[in-house]
């Protein structure tokens, strides 16, 4: 493997891993946000019922 081969391997793996991690993080973020909004709105609905 020539020198550029090693360079592309390194850059490829590093940025690949970072992009994948970013995707996973984004997905967790959105899932948490959705769940949070769901809980908050149902809590608001619940407290309105009590009024």
């Amino acid at each position, binding site marked *: 493997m020539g*020198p550029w081969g090693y*360079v592309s391997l*390194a*850059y490829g*793996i590093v940025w690949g891993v970072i992009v994948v991690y*970013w995707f996973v993080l984004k997905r967790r973020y959105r899932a948490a946000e959705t*769940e949070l909004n769901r*809980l908050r709105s149902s809590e608001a609905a619940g407290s309105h019922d009590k009024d």
Partner: protein
Amino acid sequence: MRHLAQSSNAVKKRKGILGGLALVAVATALCWSLLVAPPDAYQGEVQRIMYLHLPSILIAYLSYFLVFIGSGMYLWKREKKDDLLAHAAAELGVLFTVLTIIEGSIWGKPTWGVWWTWDARLTLMAILLLIYAGYLMLRSAIDDEQRAASAAAILGIIGFLDIPLIHMSVYWWRTLHQPPSILRPDKAPWENVHPAMLTALAISFAAFLLLYFYLLSLRYRVGEMRQEIKALRLEREV
């Protein structure tokens, strides 16, 4: 209605800007590292891996420092936000340590002929990886949230304080058992460095830092939201 910290639109916008800046910086860094900067006199093109490796090392250490600060503050003030910071920083720290090791290994193959040598830097990174992977495992192994946070905080402090001692012992160990080598690539003369290489390095550092803080803010927010979800779920059960 009471909520824990709310991610207002202003905060979200700031995160977006940070993300955008990080993207621009990373793109610039890639251009400079791969195209603008000239190849090294001794190491050739392979030296370009250093534009990844050196910033990664910095980020890893920065992360562990943040774990230390977060852990200390948590034990002192018992505020959840410090624990969230420590956890997020630990996760990112492990990520960048793994990357550092991979980069170091790939750089080592054409330079020293082997994928792994027990040289001081790589060994040190491997040990740090073990410590902070242990931190993450400890957290997930304790069911009670508060206890997990406290236990992890202790480890976060002890681990960080141990780092200088580990540094010393590993470096002494390696200088006593120095493998014979005609060329010492990691001691390349930095005096005759082309200015474009220094610029590439500086841009890479900036890019990694911006990227790191962007990812950290995302991860922190995820932790924060999970906290609030747990609290809300608990409230409903009551």
